[in-house]
């Protein structure tokens, strides 16, 4: 490595200061804030942080007081339990946490007086959340944030987690002892690295915590490592329960995302519709498709006119599905995607425009609104939503534009597609995963893997249509909440060529 690279790295390490003021667990923020934070940093960081918001729309900063990793994992544990909205599971966790006291005394060797106060904080919180979740999930979330920002409560829960990790290590010496640094031995390691308060979590500690707290209930954890290693994207590692063949035991289970920067952890979020609904759609794609077909046969302009505005907007969120009767009318449960600001999901929209079979007639009205504005970034539900009937002559509906709030309306032939977008086209030539013919040309039922590949694009997708550029969905538009002026880069004018490093 060249000398100045090392210097730059050292300077970054010196300058990086996790926030020491403010709440222990911060509010959710758009992950573009991370990109902006690193805008002037080393090019590796710039590239990696620029790619980050495409995968994770939001992040939650955690105070860097030496407990951030423990606190981030602990908060995510409770938050994910809340997200599942399952009172029974919260009560099961309450029972599990109480029964783990046994592990703390027998295996961990801790006296009961030592941990009972801390365990009480954890179990109290679980109980209070279980009581709140059926009536008011919002109040439960507020309570969780409030408890985790109360220093005494928060630290007690964190210390409970430390004791759990320590006991788990003592009970599973053979599995972990090779990972203990510096020949400390199990006792020395727990004493020096896990049990002191404010001792930040190391990799083994995180592994232990995940193994005792999250894996047994089927939660998996993805840790995104934002460091200076080679590559244009942050590396990530997924911790989950796996069977002997290495296949995940609970593939559809909830996943927690953590962002690791040297010696600091924050929480990352992917915006996605509630999990249960996704599972339902994934299991029954055929049934759903049959239903959409049926809907399109039945629908008449009169029916559509009778529905309130709100339902129409919900449907507009589904690409290629501009018009049909509201799902509840047919007793069919359709995911209700909420409309989101486009900057959270815009990365996946161009591919949806190019691979969903949208007839010219329909796309000029419906999809042009729905696709950039909000597209569910959920690959699994796609097969059910691209109704083949819409590509047929059925799509010549009476002009519905009067009922639909259209903000933008760009012509179908200028829709961004894989081949017309130079940034993606150049990427295509480098990556094999996107060069399969199905993703670029054949346009029906993209597989899950294509969607993942689409989400992995290294650079932000640039919308090419003039209508889009002039709309406030464009981040370069002054009305965009995430306004960022465009910069002229000479390289982008030239045909992409493999870059060579002169150094």
């Amino acid at each position, binding site marked *: 490595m060249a000398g100045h690279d090392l210097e730059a790295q050292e300077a970054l390490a010196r300058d990086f200061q996790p926030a020491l003021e403010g709440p222990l667990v911060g509010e959710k923020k758009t992950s573009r804030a991370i990109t902006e934070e690193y805008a002037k940093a080393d090019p590796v960081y710039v590239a990696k942080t620029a790619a980050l918001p495409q995968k994770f729309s939001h992040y939650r900063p955690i105070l860097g007081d030496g407990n951030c990793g423990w606190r981030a994992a602990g908060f995510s544990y409770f938050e994910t339990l809340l997200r599942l909205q399952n009172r029974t599971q919260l009560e099961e966790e309450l029972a599990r946490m109480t029964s783990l006291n046994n592990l703390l005394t027998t295996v961990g060797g*801790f*006296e009961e*007086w*030592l941990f009972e*106060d*801390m365990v*009480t*904080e954890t179990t*109290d919180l679980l109980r209070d959340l279980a009581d709140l979740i059926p009536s008011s999930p919002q109040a439960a979330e507020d309570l969780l944030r409030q*408890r985790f920002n*109360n*220093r*005494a*409560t928060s*630290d*007690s829960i964190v*210390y409970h987690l430390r*004791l759990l990790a320590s006991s788990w290590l003592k009970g599973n010496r053979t599995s972990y002892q090779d990972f203990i640094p510096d020949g400390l031995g199990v006792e020395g390691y727990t*004493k*020096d690295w896990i*049990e*002191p*308060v*404010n*001792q930040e979590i190391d990799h083994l500690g995180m592994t232990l915590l995940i193994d005792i707290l999250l894996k047994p209930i089927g939660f998996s954890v993805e840790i995104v490592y934002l460091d200076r290693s080679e590559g244009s994207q942050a590396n990530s590692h997924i911790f989950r329960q796996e069977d002997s063949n290495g296949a995940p035991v609970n593939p559809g289970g909830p996943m927690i995302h953590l962002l690791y920067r040297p010696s600091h952890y924050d929480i990352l979020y992917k915006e996605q519709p509630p999990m249960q609904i996704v599972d339902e759609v994934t299991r029954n794609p055929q049934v759903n498709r049959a239903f959409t077909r049926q809907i399109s046969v039945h629908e008449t302009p009169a029916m559509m006119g009778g529905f309130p505005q709100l339902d129409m907007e919900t449907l507009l969120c589904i690409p290629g599905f501009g018009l049909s009767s509201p799902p509840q009318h047919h007793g069919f449960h359709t995911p209700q995607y909420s409309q989101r600001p486009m900057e959270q999901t815009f990365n996946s929209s161009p591919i949806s425009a190019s691979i969903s079979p949208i007839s010219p007639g329909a796309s000029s009205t419906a999809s042009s609104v729905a696709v950039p504005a909000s597209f569910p970034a959920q690959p699994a539900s796609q097969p059910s939503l691209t109704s083949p009937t819409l590509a047929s002559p059925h799509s010549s509906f009476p002009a519905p534009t009067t009922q639909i709030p259209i903000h933008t309306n760009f012509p179908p032939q200028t829709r961004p597609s894989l081949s017309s977008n130079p940034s993606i086209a150049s990427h295509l030539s480098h990556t094999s995963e996107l060069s399969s013919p199905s993703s670029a040309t054949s346009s029906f039922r993209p597989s899950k893997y294509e969607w993942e590949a689409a989400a992995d694009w290294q650079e932000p997708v640039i919308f090419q249509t003039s209508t889009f550029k002039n709309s406030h969905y464009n981040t370069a538009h002054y009305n965009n909440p995430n306004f960022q002026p465009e910069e002229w880069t000479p390289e982008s004018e030239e045909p992409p060529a493999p870059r060579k490093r002169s150094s």
Partner: protein
Amino acid sequence: MSAPNKRSSTSSTSSSSSRTPTKRLLTELSAFNSSPASSHPTLIALVPSPSSLLSLRAILSGSPLPISTGYASGRWLLNITIPPNYPNSPPTITFVTKICHPNVKWETGEICLDVLKENWTPVLGVVGALEAVGRLLGEPGVDSPLGVEVASLLRQGDTIGARGLVGFWCGEERFDGVLEEGGEKDARR
């Protein structure tokens, strides 16, 4: 004067946030009183002050320490202050009886010990922390001394001189009182 904005007393019932270290301290004290003396050799007494449980007094005895350390003849009174967020923060322990030790400040009795500062773990408890202080007497660290004179003797390799100095002050300052609920009695007066 207008009536002050009176907080309703119900606000203090908000469950967990108002928890104090008192309960845990009481448990620790009763565990200490019922445990055999061999489990805490140097610590011979630990008693809360009459006014507040968050302030305690303790007596350390040097008799279990090797003669070669120079501390075997010592007996010291210590003051323990429990912070409100105990056990997440360590107790503050100071020597009331003067002690000549590389890691104790002569004037204030302040102790420099990692487990009482950045390496504190709630696992220790007050008794464990006092035992750690007792062990520190036998294993002085001379690298970042608070007691400069004796540390410089040790660093020069003058162990005999250091032992003599330590032993002199142990005899001179020895605390011969006993601790009872309600205060200590100093046998010398």
